[in-house]
């Protein structure tokens, strides 16, 4: 933990107040949350829905009130008051849903966003032009955003959030629903910003491919921080190979494998239509499984090195893929 962190969070906590009739009473949404984000660093918050990552971001950007004794925020060496306007002037935020006006053009959206920071006239026009060129949107700068694709609107939202020159950028699941090309463009832009401007970036995500691009990851579950390490160190925690077996009756197959191969049933995870096994020599186990199970019982079987999705499953007992699918369905 460097003493010169651009953003430092200590012992942050939040408890939802008593719910409406029929809902549970107060519950902790976040406890003892610590975080440091350095200049030019990308830090990710990885967790399923309800893990506390959006609550942490909302507390940091001031959308949820911090109560007395519920933690401290320090930005560039200065402790922040609740609702600190000087901090908000140095902050850029990209929300889960683009915070742009779809009836206005990209240019108009950027000019309004800059206007909020007191940047007007020729300076605003020049900065808007530059940002739209960087986002590859110069040719469609004057069309209403409702005519643009979701990926383009996301890019407008990103340049909207950084146009005023913030030193901290906070993104809450910024690529949910984006296709692969838009995802890659978004991250190319973020990495360029980090490289060239020293922008500190804090991003909440449940996409493993997004988490893998962060310099450091905090894994959250039920408001608790389970890990705070680089993605490569997190993956290195799982030394074993991972076997994934797709089957029409995964639970029955798990019992069969356990019985036939003397594998402890508790070590076989059933995730959707898949069985997941960890083994130090995955390829050897694969051969044994194929030989011991009747033909047709297995639809597909793969061996791979662990990924962040596996680390996540290992730490939280929940599948990132299923979380993601659930969110897309809900959306």
């Amino acid at each position, binding site marked *: 933990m460097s003493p010169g962190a651009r953003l430092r969070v200590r012992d942050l906590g939040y408890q939802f107040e008593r719910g409406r009739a029929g809902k549970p009473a107060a519950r902790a949404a976040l406890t003892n949350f610590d975080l440091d984000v350095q200049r030019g660093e990308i830090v990710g918050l990885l967790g399923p829905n309800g893990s506390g990552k*959006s609550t942490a971001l909302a507390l940091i950007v001031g959308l949820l009130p911090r109560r007395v004794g519920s933690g401290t925020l320090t930005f560039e060496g200065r402790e922040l008051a609740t609702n600190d306007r000087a901090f908000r002037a140095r902050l850029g935020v990209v929300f889960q849903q683009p915070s742009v006006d779809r009836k206005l053009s990209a240019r108009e959206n950027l000019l309004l966003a800059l206007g909020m920071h007191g940047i007007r006239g020729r300076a605003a026009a020049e900065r808007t032009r530059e940002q739209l060129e960087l986002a590859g949107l110069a040719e469609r700068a004057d069309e209403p955003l409702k005519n643009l694709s979701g990926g383009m609107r996301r890019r407008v939202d990103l340049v909207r959030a950084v146009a005023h020159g913030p030193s901290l950028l906070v993104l809450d699941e910024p690529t949910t629903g984006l296709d692969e090309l838009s995802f890659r463009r978004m991250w190319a832009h973020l990495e360029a910003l980090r490289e*060239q401007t020293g922008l500190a970036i804090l991003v909440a995500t449940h996409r493993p491919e997004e988490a893998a691009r962060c310099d450091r990851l905090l894994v959250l579950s039920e408001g608790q921080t389970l890990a705070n390490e680089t993605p490569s160190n997190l993956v290195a925690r799982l030394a074993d190979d991972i076997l994934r077996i797709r089957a029409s009756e995964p639970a029955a197959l798990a019992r069969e494998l356990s019985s036939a191969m003397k594998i402890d049933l508790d070590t076989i995870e059933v995730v959707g239509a898949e069985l997941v096994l960890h083994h130090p020599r995955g390829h050897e186990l694969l051969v044994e499984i194929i030989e011991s199970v009747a033909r047709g019982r297995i639809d597909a079987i793969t061996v791979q090195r662990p990924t962040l999705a596996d680390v996540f499953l290992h730490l939280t007992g929940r599948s990132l893929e299923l979380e993601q699918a659930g969110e897309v369905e809900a959306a």
Partner: protein
Amino acid sequence: MTSSVETLAPLAPSTELAPRAELSGFATDLALIGVLWRRDMIHLLRERSRWLGVVVQPLLFWGLIGSGLAGAFALPTAEGLGYLEYLFPGILAMVVLFTAVFATMSVIEDRQQGFLQQVMVGPGSRAALVLGKTAGVTTMALIQAGLCLLAAPLAGLSLAAVDWPSLALALVLGCIGLTAINFTLAWLVDSTAGYHGILSIVLLPLWIVSGAMFPAASGLPWLEPVMRANPMTYLVDALRHSLYGGVAPVSHVSLPVALVVLAGCALAFVSLAVWVVGRRVQAGRAA
């Protein structure tokens, strides 16, 4: 989609985006008020359907109801006052009400997944947010009420007799109050359907018992105190007095009293809106 749009060309900015020198809180608030006002003006110019809803509908309502009830309406205290003429100040109040309702309805979605999200994390204060929105809606209401006034001669009202400063003041104060209270309601409800419900069971009935459609002296004992307690009554009265040059043939209170009450309500409702926005920053957000 052009190919240049979807390439993966490097996206590095050519220069570091240095933030502007820190503005004072007051300057930042003025900037935010200006941004929100400008945004509302762009919407007003672009959205033609808005004009139909806010200007044409009340005039249609005035023409149909005013003509239909003309034969059944008679005021012993104001002989010769036709119903189209009586109804006209209430129609102006309806334009203000509809402008405030339609312009603040967007706040519901805007703060959950739209433009207002960035305002909430921007450097402007919550008060500037309320004042900026109010400034935009008030300007819209003045323009739209001005258009409606062109129909005043059809109601038998002379534009030469109008007390314009009082009329403008009444419209501005009425609009500030109605925008602020509608903004508060829009901030508190989580769905457009809920907001429509409030419009139907609270705001429209308040307009009806404001003296817009009938005066208090209608033989119903409960009506007089209800009208006195209804802020919209003072808007209708202030507009009515102003249209007659200061003293209307029928009213509940005098013009100065109506303007003072409107000013008090505007101040109270703006304060309420600022308080509510400050307390309930984020609604319905999952962890």
